């Protein structure tokens, strides 16, 4: 019961944040609501017993990725979103389509809701076990992603630095 209340509480924050992200016109507000979504998702993970995932969610998602977003918004001084007409097709067909799809999925889930309830903390997301899995069974994907992120870092540096700075090489101090 207690857990259900907690679930509902954080679930409500999640949904509210997600909706707020859509409604707000200023990107910084959207970013903040996304942070709220992520933080409450971390709480949901805790409820599911995935402690480590929850911590990483906060550190990586809320603490690093979203900081990048916020810095970008600050750096570009992004103002209020201007409402251009844009591609009508996306809105006219996409939005109802998505809504219908969402309703369908929900209906299916509710209709075939014979899945068991998830026992809280039944599966401890213990760092020890996760490490064993990550460094034994999933070693290759792990290494591949590490290469991926290295490439991403290099790509980001090249993309974001100015063209002439790249051509010139690192800035030399006087002499």
């Amino acid at each position, binding site marked *: 019961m207690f857990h259900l209340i907690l679930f509902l509480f954080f679930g409500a924050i999640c949904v509210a944040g997600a909706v707020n992200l859509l409604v707000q016109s200023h990107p*910084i507000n959207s970013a*903040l609501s996304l942070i709220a979504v992520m933080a409450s998702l971390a709480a949901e993970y805790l409820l599911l017993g995935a402690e480590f995932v929850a911590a990483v969610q906060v*550190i990586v998602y809320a*603490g690093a990725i979203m900081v990048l977003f916020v810095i970008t918004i600050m750096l570009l001084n992004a103002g209020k979103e201007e409402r251009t007409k844009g591609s009508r097709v996306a809105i006219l067909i996409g939005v109802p389509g998505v809504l219908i799809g969402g309703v369908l999925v929900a209906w299916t889930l509710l209709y075939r809701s014979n899945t068991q309830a998830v026992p809280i903390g039944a599966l401890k997301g213990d760092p020890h076990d996760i490490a064993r899995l990550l460094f034994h069974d999933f070693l290759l994907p792990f290494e591949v992603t590490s290469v991926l992120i290295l490439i991403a870092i290099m790509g980001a540096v090249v993309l974001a630095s100015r063209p002439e700075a790249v051509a010139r090489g690192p800035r030399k101090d006087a002499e």
Partner: protein
Amino acid sequence: MSITTFVIISIIKSVAVLGVLLTAVAYSVWLERKVSAHIQNRWGPTRVGPFGLLQPVADGVKFIFKEDLTQPHVYKPIFIAAPIIALVFAITSISVIPFGNWVDIGPWGTYLQITDLNIGLLVVLGITSMGVYGVALAGWSSNNKYSLLGGLRASAQMVSYEVSLGLSLVGVLIITGSLSLRDIVDAQRHLHWNIFLQPVAFFIYLISAYAETNRTPFDLPEAESELVAGYHTEYSAMKFAMFFMAEYANMVTVACLATLLFFGGWLGPVFGPPILQMILPVLWFCLKVFFFMFLYIWVRWTLPRFRYDQLMAFGWKVLLPLAVANIVVTALIVAWRA
């Protein structure tokens, strides 16, 4: 233990820890003023109470009664939210810090800790990493160029140094094999303090922690000689006080963490009657934390500050490789021993 007792004890513990933390914050401000004064041939606060001991109260009253300015050009919701965010995250991170061992109070016994998570260290890191938002948003929402530069600097600095801070702790984790702060302390019994096993990691941690808490020589986000007051240029009264408290609360947290991870936490000689045995560990813990606070203040009033690019270069080109090397060496030794 029934759920009611649990809730009651938890609430009592939370309130007690919050009270202790806020007092510690207030008195670290007093300590800073006093120590800096003595470093600089001054007296520091002397008027309010004996040795100026009531100065924090006077400061608090002053902050409350100051006019709370909200400039017309600020982005109001975030301008108000930013100091709250900074303070809340700064205070929350103390929740998993253990102050001492098991204590028995009458029929009940408890750990001197609000909650013991087996990923306690990660929680502290996670929560402190959220503290960036307070600073960044304050800088952005003030709609002031100095604030913006301060906010950008702060967020870049904190994100960068978080990397080396996190990596410096990995060595300790490899040795201990646990993320729980209590386990880490327990592993340091018999003077096997991590400072002896992981000296490099300790210094990386110390330096990164200075940068994380924006203290001299890394206080660039609020470098008053360049950016007036950085991200809190436009803040006044209680909103400013919140940033101020957040800074000192972060200092306390970081000092606690240093004590727990490298200096054996509450471990120390314990003797005497039971009541003394209960108090002594807390005393050792407090003394060690006090030492780190003093170190903070000492460094601040001795060193000049870095330049921004030098700071970033130092973080990425010196601390990060050092931390990685430390991890590799530690891992190799541990593997060789095993």
